[in-house]
């Protein structure tokens, strides 16, 4: 991997910083504590940085301020109760959290949801991705002091939340997926409204593209910062847009065989060879546009039929273990469900994307200037519920 000027400079500077701290001349570094309550940390993440001047010599995230003990709680709940709980892990794109869990349970029961339910699941999945990433795009500006995009993001997100509420009853935390299908069918007029809302979201993407990504300040603060090469990304388990920004061509919607209807639509996977913060943000913008395309195409292809297969009233999932992971808005989210034939699971291991995404922070923040700390964290994009579960 060849190094850019900036990267070389920061490498030399970090070597010098280390050397300076070791020299006879006692200079004391400063310990900067970012968080746990900080507008830039998307929640309660605490980052302890040891600084030398303006440069970070050593950084460490301290997670756990939102640790709610999900894996223990799932052991004492039934499967539908776990579905309710699991909505709240990635709390911006909530429907996306339910899907891999339900798919794992369906895999153990060896049933498949009917085609109509699969298509509607995919549409809601993509809508929750759009809702999640549109807030990310708005928040990008706030990390740098540009406050207007977040108001635009909240306004345009309301359209998606209205849709999700119309179909499921909850703005977020829909709790709509059931083992065997969906809870209910779509209401009348929903499809037309979705078409209109998705057009508005496409306009929002264009606005953000113009406002933020075309902005000289944004570019100079994001390009060349926080470069993560592909092999390091795989070592740490970075997934989603973070991995694709480092050039790894891998998208779980395309590369695995799960009962969601991505093959009914024509869409592309975006990658970027650079691996810097700019690439991560840019890929998410393109992916939002791609999701809008997927939704528009799938809306025309919803088959008629039931939304729920025949399942017993009280569901006992047979013994076994299953792993299902999907391409969630934050990355690869997977559930390893161990069932012993009861009403609820025996053990659920929740593999959340942000946990791995943030484990790279100590590596990524070495030798970086303090303002760049914020932009690197912003571009890695995490949600605390996802890190801490």
């Amino acid at each position, binding site marked *: 991997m060849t190094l850019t000027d900036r990267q070389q400079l920061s490498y030399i500077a970090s070597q010098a910083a280390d050397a300076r701290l070791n020299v006879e001349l006692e200079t004391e570094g400063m310990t900067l504590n970012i968080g746990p309550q900080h507008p830039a940390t998307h929640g309660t993440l605490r980052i302890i940085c040891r600084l030398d001047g303006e440069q970070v010599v050593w950084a460490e995230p301290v997670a756990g301020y939102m*640790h709610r003990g999900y894996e223990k709680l799932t052991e004492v709940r039934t499967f539908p109760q776990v579905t309710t709980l699991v909505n709240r892990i990635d709390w911006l794109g909530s429907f996306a959290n339910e899907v891999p869990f339900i798919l794992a349970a369906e*895999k153990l029961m060896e049933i498949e949801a009917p085609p109509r339910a699969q298509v509607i699941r995919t549409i809601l999945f993509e809508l929750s991705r759009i809702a999640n990433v549109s807030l990310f795009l708005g928040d990008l500006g706030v990390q740098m002091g540009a406050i207007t995009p977040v108001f635009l993001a909240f306004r345009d997100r309301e359209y998606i939340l209205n849709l999700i509420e119309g179909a499921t009853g909850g703005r977020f935390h829909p709790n709509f997926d059931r083992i065997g299908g969906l809870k209910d069918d779509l209401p009348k007029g929903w499809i037309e409204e979705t078409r209109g809302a998705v057009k508005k979201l496409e306009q929002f993407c264009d606005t953000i593209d113009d406002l933020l990504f075309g902005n000289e300040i944004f570019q100079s603060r994001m390009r060349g910062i926080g470069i993560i090469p592909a092999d390091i990304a795989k070592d740490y388990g970075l997934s989603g847009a973070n991995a694709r920004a480092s050039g790894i061509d891998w998208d779980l919607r395309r590369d695995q065989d799960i009962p969601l209807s991505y093959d009914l639509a024509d869409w592309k*996977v975006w990658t970027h060879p650079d691996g810097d913060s*700019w690439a991560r943000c840019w890929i998410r913008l393109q992916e939002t546009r791609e999701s809008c395309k997927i939704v528009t195409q799938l809306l025309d292809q919803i088959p008629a039929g039931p939304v729920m297969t025949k399942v017993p009233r009280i569901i006992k999932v047979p013994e076994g273990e299953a792993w299902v992971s999907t391409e969630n808005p934050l990355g690869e989210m997977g559930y390893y469900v161990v069932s012993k034939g009861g009403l609820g699971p025996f053990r659920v291991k929740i593999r959340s994307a942000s946990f791995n995404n943030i484990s790279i922070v100590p590596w990524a923040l070495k030798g970086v200037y303090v303002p760049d700390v914020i932009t690197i964290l912003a571009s890695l994009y995490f949600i605390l519920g996802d890190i801490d579960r």
Partner: protein
Amino acid sequence: MAPLSDDTTTQDAPGADAPAALPGDGLREGIIDNLRSHIGDAIVDTKITPNDDLWIRVSTEAWLSTGQALKDAGFTYFCFLSGLDWMPSPYGTSEEDPDDEPKEPDTEIVQGYTGGETRFQVFARLADLDRHVGVTIKADVPDDRLVMESWSHLFAGANWHERECHEMYGIGFDNHPDLRNMYLPGDFEGYPLRKDFPLLARMVKPWPGIVDVEPMPAEDEAEAPVEEKGDES
């Protein structure tokens, strides 16, 4: 200095770069054979669910060498690492009605896929992003000494996962650079994900149990049970 790319980088449509065929069981068996050529009979058990997934259980001593062998074979993506406690919970799973007669608690330790001999197991998942296949590796943790070798020098991402596994189960990891609590405050006592760690709120107020299948309002008012408290009609 490598010039940074401009924005016009795109990727082709799914047909062009997608794998020619999704991995089949032949590929998975090839993975097992490849691993066997590296670590021999340290492979204790394997399980392939048809057209779906692959589990391999290895002996405790071969935990690190398995990781190394798989990484060399192309499994460079580290998905997760965690633990399993196979003892059934002595406090029940809140599925029973607390007013019923308490049943005999089930204390038999039965492991899942690919078996096992101990109460605790560690399991990890790695993926090969080029062949689009993943593998779940399990290993027993010896009952008398809950320590495994650490993968953190092999996969940098394993660092945090092993910290979490340590604080949740109490499984130690040799050669881990920094094994302290990930989530829990420093003065937390106990290992929460062990089955014998009680959830105190549930012991104080037990959950009413099996889902209450009340009739829908329009359905059967005639069959609605007589309520002792309140007499709404």
